[in-house]
């Protein structure tokens, strides 16, 4: 508990320092265009308008934007909201690591929070990924109780969609039908409970959010490169098209191979290969987790299963890094200390190279393809290294 106190104190100091630096440098979030669109047109989210993400994460920013009419005030409020979410994520990671490897908890949790790309993408973007990942980590922390796990997965899923992926490893991991049903039931219960207002107002618009999300194309992953699609480009993020249901928009706009939001695969087998790999890896790893006697080891394998979900996803952008790294940290806790930190640093370095494509004028001279392809290939090598290491340990 002494360490926990020290960690909380360091978090407080971290928050003060980071606020000072980020405010001084002006790295503050800007309002997202769909919030601006909704305010200008007077449309209500999830009733008249279909935002890109589920309500728990989205409405926080929408509320802040509507509360503060001045953009600068919004930026400050969203920044502090993001900072609080990052601190929560740091605490969740600390608690999870301390359950598995108490000695490394302080260093690793702090290391995660100090990573430049984690700081940048969590604090300056009006996305609630930090909250979603925190919900997933807390679900792992309370793994003994399927009710709490399911409820946290439900909250996470309504923040961003991907926390629902935790259900599969947990379903395999839990022994006994009662635990499995409890997990699923509490998940559905929370999702239904939080969705009541939207289901009562316009269920089809609410459903459209999820449907549109599944129609999204690849982005900046190895699958994306194989398909010849290099970025997050194409038809604009939802604005005027989001005032109708997703299938209604499909009637006026055909899928194409350069629109991220309504993507047509040039190699139609690729999304199925990606999904197949995700399923095979997640199920196999979760099955190994189930077979382990030690709960700590099982938790590590479940983290690896989640890590593999993102590794084989067709979608990647530098923000995914902050979702992926906590699970990498948890999955590699039984590695040698140096090897683990080395791997985390390697992922961070590759992500910084990847981020350059987004933020520096380097692509003006070389085109976006070269650094992006380099980052994607390097990351793929790192994925292979991580899985090979696990395979080696397993066979040993």
């Amino acid at each position, binding site marked *: 508990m002494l360490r926990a106190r020290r960690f909380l104190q360091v978090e407080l100091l971290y928050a003060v320092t980071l606020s000072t630096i980020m405010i001084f440098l002006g790295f503050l979030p800007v309002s997202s265009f769909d919030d601006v669109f909704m305010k200008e047109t007077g449309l209500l989210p999830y009733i008249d308008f279909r935002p890109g993400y589920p309500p728990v994460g989205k409405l926080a920013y929408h509320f802040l934007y509507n509360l503060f009419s001045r953009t600068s005030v919004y930026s400050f409020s969203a920044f502090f909201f993001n900072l609080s979410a990052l601190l929560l994520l740091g605490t969740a990671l600390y608690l999870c690591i301390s359950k598995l490897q108490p000695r490394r908890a302080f260093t690793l949790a702090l290391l995660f929070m100090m990573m430049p790309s984690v700081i940048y993408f969590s604090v300056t973007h009006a996305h609630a990924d930090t909250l979603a990942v925190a919900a997933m980590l807390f679900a792992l922390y309370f793994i003994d109780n399927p009710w709490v796990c399911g409820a946290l997965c439900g909250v996470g899923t309504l923040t961003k969609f991907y926390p629902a992926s935790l259900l599969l490893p947990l379903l395999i991991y839990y022994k006994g039908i009662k635990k499995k*049903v*409890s997990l699923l039931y509490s998940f559905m219960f929370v999702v239904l*409970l939080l969705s009541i207002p939207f289901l009562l107002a*316009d269920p089809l618009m609410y459903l459209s959010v999820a449907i549109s999300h599944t129609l999204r194309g690849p982005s900046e992953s190895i699958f994306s490169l194989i398909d010849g699609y290099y970025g997050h*480009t194409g038809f604009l993020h939802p604005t005027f098209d989001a*005032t109708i249901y997703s299938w209604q928009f499909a009637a006026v706009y055909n899928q194409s191979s*350069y629109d991220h939001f309504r993507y047509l695969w040039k190699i139609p087998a690729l999304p199925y290969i990606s999904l197949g790999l995700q399923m095979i890896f997640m199920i196999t790893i979760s099955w190994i987790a189930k077979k382990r006697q030690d709960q700590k080891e099982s938790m590590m394998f479940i983290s690896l299963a989640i890590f593999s979900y993102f590794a084989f996803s067709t979608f990647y952008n530098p923000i995914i890094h902050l979702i992926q790294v906590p699970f990498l940290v948890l999955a590699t806790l039984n590695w040698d200390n140096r090897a683990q930190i080395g791997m985390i640093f390697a992922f961070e370095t590759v992500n910084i190279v990847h981020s350059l494509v987004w933020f520096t004028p380097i692509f003006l001279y070389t085109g976006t393809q070269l650094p992006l392809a380099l980052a994607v290939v390097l990351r793929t090598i790192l994925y292979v290294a991580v899985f090979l290491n696990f395979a080696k340990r397993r066979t040993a």
Partner: protein
Amino acid sequence: MEKRIGIGFSIILLLMMMLSGFIAYTLMDFVKSSTIESSYNFKVVGSSASIELPQVSPSDRIYLVLNTSSRIKIDYGPMLKQFPYDIEGLPYDFEDWLLLQQRFCFIANESSPNSTLRMSFLDPEIPYCVKIAQGEADYALFSYIDYAGVSYVGVHAKALRGQSSRFQQVMLIYPYHRVAEQTFQINGSVKFLGGKLSHITFFIITRDRNWLPYTIASNEQIFSKTINFNINLYNRTIFGRTFSEDFGKQILYVAVSIGLDSWQWKYGKVAYAKVGIGEIKIFNGNEATVIEPKLSEEYTVNCNLYVFRKFHPTTIYTISILVLVFLVFAGALMLARLSGFEFAPQKLFGPLITTEAVSDPRPKTYLAKLFHKPRYDRLIGLLLKFAGRKVSVLIDVGCGLGVLHDYIKESGFDVKLYVGCDVDKKALQEASSIERILCDVQHLPLKESIAEVVVCSEVLEHTVSPNLGFSELLEVSKRWVFVSFPEEKLKNALGFRFPQHISEPNATEFKRLAEKKKFKLLKKEKKYFALPPSVFDKLRLRYEAFYRPIIVFFFRFFSIIFRNFSLIKDMLLVFKRRGNQVDVI
């Protein structure tokens, strides 16, 4: 019992499935009829055309999709309101063919069976879509045939007055959705017809947001000069290197850009240029595309009108959803019972919040001072108010380490005899500055009415029978009894019971007992604590730390705001003996 719950749960599950099926059917039924599409194909000669609208309701959306790149003004009347494409506007206009081909979005404000949509065609029809890419400019299109009989699309580009931007750029954009192959080549000609040019540039716009520029002419001022151009992707080099990676790119548009520079003109004059764009041929692999310089006042309009209906929940639908929620809730309760789920936050949050911590009352040590210090302050205030500063005999029942004695001493009380009683031998050994008796509050080895003041602070909840202990206090007191204890019903109900608090003293019961023994309740005070002290104890936060004021502020703030939800309500009761006093022995 478990079998009954199991059957109940199965029934609920069945009902849920049936209800979900009904809801899904209702929604699917609506989805089938949610889109109404009408197609229009007509020729327009002149400049305007009208489309009759179907009847729409206020929340329906109307999308008009026009397959033309001509500049059109649409009069949508008082009943319809146009949505903006997006708030950020311009940057996307050049990238999305959807916007280039003039698709319009409307929201219906009122229902009207006879409303019409009037379209006005502002320019003659040409193969290009015209956009102002930089600054503010106006343009006019005309047909031009030179002395050799070659046709051109004439563009009269003109800057607007009084704008801050020095440059203006009018672009003629042609949608060309192909992948660039090695043989990709463009041939064509432009003719300068008047004014002053800053530049004529040919752009290839690719899907990855690259604009590949090829300058055709710059600062051109020679009237009637024809410039022939030939472009291939090898033309474009930077730092002497050919951009071979441009091959294989998805080309979205090709465009001719006419640039104006206001500084080329005298003050007060408006920059303008007239340019003719001739036939342009694009060769890509085996395919050749010809963009003919053709103008026409006759428009072939193909358009689709969509009415997208919005779902309006019916009463039956709303009731179904509410019943479903109720069933899910009931199912959750049954399943919780079946799976042996127990709501035990203490077990769940054990590692985070625990009640096993020792709440050390020494105020200098931990943040527990937040709890103990206000208690002692309040007690001393009431002692001063009722018993006065001079006290002959004071018995501190459950004195522990003698912390109250230290406070009383610091507060300037004149106590002739201070006696401390406790069951904890170790604690008594430390409290060396007072007279000490090792005893239990339920069996005080003291004579009746021996003390002027009896104080018993936060002790009775540790005893098996608080009423017995309280009766003992009344027995030994000659005049005053000060007793304090926590009321922790909410905290205990939530599962955060402090293990050493084995009973729950009751103020009403104490009052009844006191009246029996001829004591009167003079004062009853409550103090609210939002959280149990053990939380802070466990964190071991130093009271003297720099964040003390913040924590104290928030703690007190929450304790006041959420007083009814406070986990602990601390009671302090003051009793006084009625009638004649017994002399102190």
